[in-house]
């Protein structure tokens, strides 16, 4: 059997080394902020600010309990109907009113955590949030959660992006964002 000579391979530009490419443009980071507890809010804020400091584009999708964190601190009751209002009364929204998932002890746990943080010069979630916003971290509220809890734009802190849905989040993952679910 004779093989026909294969056409010469087209000259291919040498592909840039993956390492060099990664150095040129780090992966974008997508944090799905789902939980509303103090310690998880802290983790979200530390990673978001550090990601921005490392030169990455950081986006934070705010959904379910995670969205409650981004209601203005001074808001006490949110929502339109009785059940939505009850939900906000049972768990006060706002970044300064987070509870611990364990050892909350009617606020004793968070009080001690905040005391320790001050003692060891650890920035509070609220301080880190302000830094994150100043560094260009993008916060994207979940439209469905906004609707379900009856939250309005004016209930939320300033500087949040337009509300989006799960498709936006998935599309960012498909584009290669490094995803984090907190």
């Amino acid at each position, binding site marked *: 059997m004779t093989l026909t000579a294969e056409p010469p391979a087209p000259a291919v530009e040498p592909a840039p080394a993956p390492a060099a490419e990664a150095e040129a443009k780090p992966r974008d980071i997508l944090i799905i902020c789902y939980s509303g507890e103090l310690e998880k809010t802290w983790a979200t804020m530390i990673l978001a600010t550090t990601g921005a*400091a*490392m030169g990455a584009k950081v986006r934070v999708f705010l959904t379910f309990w995670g969205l409650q964190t981004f209601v203005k601190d001074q808001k006490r009751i949110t929502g339109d109907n009785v059940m939505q209002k009850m939900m906000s009364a049972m768990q006060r929204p706002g970044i300064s009113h987070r509870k611990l998932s364990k050892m909350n002890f009617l606020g004793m746990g968070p009080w001690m955590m905040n005391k320790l943080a001050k003692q060891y010069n650890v920035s509070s979630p609220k301080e880190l949030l302000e830094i994150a916003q100043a560094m260009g971290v993008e916060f994207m509220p979940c439209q469905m959660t906004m609707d379900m809890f009856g939250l309005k734009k004016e209930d939320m802190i300033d500087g949040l992006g337009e509300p989006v849905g799960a498709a936006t989040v998935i599309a960012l993952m498909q584009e290669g964002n490094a995803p984090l679910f907190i």
Partner: protein
Amino acid sequence: MSTEQIAQVVDAKGLSCPMPIVKTAQAIKGLVSGQLLEVLATDAGSVKDFAAWAKSTGNPMVEQTVEGGVYRFVLRKK
């Protein structure tokens, strides 16, 4: 030991993660390419963190010393 002039100093002594890195990232924005930034920190994790930051952001670390529990990093703006 470099004899070049330091353009700016970030005093992050006493600060915990992630503030030394965050303050460094904010400060280096104000420099022009080639200028040197000096960072002082007491966070023991900062040795590895600053090496990682320099690698990730491409701003090379030109000097690194420790004296009396104070870490000193000199970074060059890329």
